[in-house]
């Protein structure tokens, strides 16, 4: 079972190779390989979820695999170690489960793709493998590698299989995310020049024998020697390891991102600047107002399964990056900018909801509702309270399920009519009763009706935001009050859309091509929507299913951030 995480990453990548070897016209085989690979991934991730031991000692990464990959001699600066380092903890666990689940749903949704099937499924699996890699990587370089590798397949998937303005949307998506990832790259370079791996340094400096686990005393001794300046230069092993970067003792004195460093640039301490760069990098991915404008375009042009992947998984990488890297590595900056982060979160909630209210295109409406919902992640994180951070994580998971449903719903309408305009439809409930029932579930779950997973998440976030001023002193109360308004707006745009499209007298715009027949769901569509609806309900009624697994690690994350601020 040592290789379970690696198999999660490499099963899809292996399937890519198999698909590339298959002949172009053997479409059924290609689809089956893709389905098989993602199903295997789902089974493994469910197994991982059940085998994950939440009672284990805190901050324990489980199923860890750590191999040296690239060693570069930096001469006077010592050695640079890049590792293949994967592991799972409570923060990544739910994301891994979500990835396994949504990948399969996406493959089912892709079954009707007809253009260049071989290329499509190869890129799809490459994307899934990279997303999985992102959630499992514990080495910053490895994380960055997978982060960049998500871009290319996504770019092609939108650019080749997308709607009429696909090229514009693809390049816009690409440039935005790329700028984000380059900002991350700057900080990554700064972090590796500043951080060192105490265990490997001990071996290099002959303080510990090679090939054995280095004891905690030796690690502490190395940290002490480096801090005192007796161990310097060529004997230091620089690292990209995220767990190492999370400890202030692992920063070299005098280096650019050392916690005691008083270096400033434009009158801002460099560590604060690094936090901001990383924050913007991940905020573009999340996305956060005002760097969200790529999202509606990308969603509108992307084919349905790719929209599902984009909303359910790729956006989560942004939030996950904040949890995994930004907050633990820069806790003092996180505390300093908590107000700003919370404010941006609330701005996203309100602005996203208002935009959604104004949209005439159902898919755009849902895209903006994503912006609004991801604002809750930021708000919960910024509150730095137990409720808030748990809620933020819960929101990421729950939004992954709900947004997948919502985008499949728009796909269902689009497949039948070639249009997604809200004004083109009325009274769909008459021709598509079962579909309407599922739409109601999805809309209500998304607007945060009690009983669905969205409610739990948003409730926790708001609780955290309200109590923040008293507990951690991060956010003023008015932010929470304004954010509550976002829920109201959410109810408004969903109910209004529901009323306009599904209720009233049955009518479909006569000028839509081929006078579409709005038949009810097919078996394939049931297969996608019903499991998601059930999961949304289960996680709404029994939040402890997820929280029991993830809370210990999230609370530990919170403690370490609050201690080091």
């Amino acid at each position, binding site marked *: 079972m040592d290789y379970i995480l690696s198999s999660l990453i490499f099963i899809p990548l292996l399937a890519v190779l198999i698909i590339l070897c298959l002949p172009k016209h053997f479409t059924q085989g290609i689809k089956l390989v893709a389905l098989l690979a993602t199903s295997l991934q789902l089974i493994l991730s469910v197994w991982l979820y059940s085998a994950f031991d939440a009672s284990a000692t805190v901050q324990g990464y489980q199923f860890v695999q750590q191999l040296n990959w*690239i060693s*570069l001699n930096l001469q006077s600066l010592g050695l640079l170690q890049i590792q293949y380092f994967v592991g799972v903890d409570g923060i990544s666990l739910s994301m891994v489960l979500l990835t396994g689940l949504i990948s399969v749903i996406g493959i089912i949704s892709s079954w009707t793709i007809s253009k260049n099937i071989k290329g499509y499924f190869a890129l799809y699996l490459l994307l899934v493998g990279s997303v999985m890699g992102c959630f499992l990587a514990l080495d910053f370089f490895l994380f960055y590698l997978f982060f960049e590798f998500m871009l290319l397949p996504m770019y092609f998937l939108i650019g*080749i299989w997308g709607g009429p303005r696909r*090229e514009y949307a693809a390049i816009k998506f690409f*440039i935005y995310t790329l700028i984000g990832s*380059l900002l991350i790259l*700057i900080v990554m370079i700064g972090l590796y020049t500043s951080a060192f791996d105490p265990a490997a340094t001990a071996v290099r400096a002959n303080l510990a024998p090679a090939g054995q686990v280095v004891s905690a005393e030796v690690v502490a001794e190395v940290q002490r020697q480096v801090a005192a300046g007796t161990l310097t230069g060529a004997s230091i092993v620089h690292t990209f390891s995220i767990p190492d970067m999370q400890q202030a003792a692992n920063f070299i004195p005098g280096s*650019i991102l050392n916690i005691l460093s008083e270096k400033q640039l434009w009158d801002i301490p*460099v560590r604060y*600047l690094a936090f901001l760069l990383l924050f913007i990098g991940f905020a573009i991915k999340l996305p956060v107002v005002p760097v969200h404008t790529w999202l509606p375009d990308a969603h509108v042009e992307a084919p349905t399964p790719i929209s599902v992947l984009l909303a359910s998984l790729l956006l989560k990488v942004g939030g996950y990056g904040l949890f995994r890297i930004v907050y633990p590595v820069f806790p003092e900056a996180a505390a300093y900018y908590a107000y700003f982060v919370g404010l941006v979160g609330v701005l996203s909630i309100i602005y996203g909801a208002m935009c959604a209210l104004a949209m005439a295109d159902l898919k755009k409406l849902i895209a903006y509702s994503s912006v609004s919902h991801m604002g809750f992640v930021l708000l919960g994180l910024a509150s730095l309270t137990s409720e808030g951070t748990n809620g933020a994580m819960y929101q990421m998971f729950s939004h992954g399920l709900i947004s997948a449903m919502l985008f499949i719903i728009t796909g269902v309408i689009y497949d039948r009519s070639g249009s997604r305009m809200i004004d083109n439809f009325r009274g769909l409930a008459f021709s598509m009763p079962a579909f309407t029932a599922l739409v109601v579930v999805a809309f209500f779950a998304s607007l945060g009706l009690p009983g669905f997973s969205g409610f739990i998440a948003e409730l926790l976030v708001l609780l955290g935001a309200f109590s923040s001023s008293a507990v951690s002193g991060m956010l003023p109360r008015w932010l929470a009050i304004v954010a509550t308004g976002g829920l109201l707006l959410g109810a408004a745009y969903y109910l209004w859309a529901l009323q306009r499209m599904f209720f009233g007298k049955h009518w479909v715009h006569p000028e839509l091509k081929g006078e579409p027949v709005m038949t009810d769901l097919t078996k394939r569509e049931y297969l996608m929507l019903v499991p998601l609806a059930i999961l949304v309900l289960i996680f709404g009624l029994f939040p402890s299913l997820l929280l029991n697994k993830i809370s210990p690690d999230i609370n530990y994350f919170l403690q370490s951030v609050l201690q080091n601020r």
Partner: protein
Amino acid sequence: MNSIILLTSFGILNLFIGFSKSKKIIMPLVLLFLAIVFVVNLTGWNDTQTYFERMLTIDNFAIAFTAVVVLTTILVLPFSQSYIDQQNDSLAEYYSLLLFSLVGAIMMVAYENLLMLFVGIEILSISMYILAGSDKKNLKSNEAGLKYFLMGSFATGILLFGIVLIYGATGTFYISEISSAATAQSNNELTSPLLGMGLLFTLIGISFKVSAAPFHFWTPDVYEGTPTFFMAFMSTVVKAAGFAGFYKLMSVSFAGAQNIWFPTLIAMAVVTLAIGNIGAVAQNSFKRMMAYSSISHAGYLMIALLSFNDRSENAIFFYSLAYSVSTVAALGILKLVADQRDDVSYNAFNGLGRTNPLLAAVMTISMCSLAGIPLTGGFFGKLFIFSAALEQELLWLIIVAILMAAVGFYYYFRVIIAMYMREPSGDRVPVGSVATFALIFMTVLTFVLGIAPGLLSNIL
């Protein structure tokens, strides 16, 4: 030294072989010559030799960069197949000029005396003037040759003037001896104007050769008119040798006189990055885009020059290698495509993904490497340069460079859009077997540099 002798004699030998009727034999022979030079060059590793009264030093630095330029030339050659097919009369002369220009390139990386630098630059440049205008019946090629010659002569003149002024200020042409005098004088108000002027003029001369802004104006026009095959050579060999020479001059002679050149160079780096990248965005011709891209890469290399520590020479070496390999692959494919479709704009690549999957894949990988996507050599090239610069705390410069890299993605990816997202604009492009092999080799090398950069990142 052996490589200089070998290249010269092979060049002369090649001219005689050119008398033979069969043109087919020339390319394999030249490839063989270059392979011999490559091997002989590497045998001198770790064995520093000086020649001509210490005017040339063949050390590891020189050997490494000689290997880069020779390897680049080997990789460029297979794309001259169309010249052979057309029974071009001057083929042997072209190849000989390439061999001779390599001699100049080697002198530029091995010089120990400013006169040698000057002679090396001249040997390289004069061959390039001829090759730029080698497509005699093409007006643009004529323009390129003349433009390059006129501007190049001025630049060489300025360079020579600079060298003379430096001689006037320090009394020597030897770069190691200049060092102590320059360090002493750089803080002395009475004598430094002469030195400063000399250094500035030298900077201008070399910047012209490596096409760093604001001395880049010739680059797009000349590159556009130059036959693609020679452009591939020019934009890689001249750049790699030029930067190696540039670095050697700065690190050996003027390390102590940073107060004179540091602000100048930093401004030039920013301007070069901006002009290269923003200029490339505006192009519709792939060939002109590659010309601007070569300017922008000069900007990144200048950052390595500026960071100025024990890793910058390794960074320059690694970056030049990764850049050369990807550029040769891209321009080689352009040559193949343009020969058939008679077009050097982005449109020439339309639908290449469907007609020639291999060419499109190689092109995609080289574009990714030039743009700096992980797992390719170009990414580590940039990473090394940025980390070397970060140590000098040039954070704002890195931020500028990285934003410019983001711009770079836009124009590099336009060709990928054309290849995969548009309908084919022509039939399958024929590719010779040697060229196919070279393309695959370059792709593999790009990945090797990107997956195991440790192999080559630390050899100097």
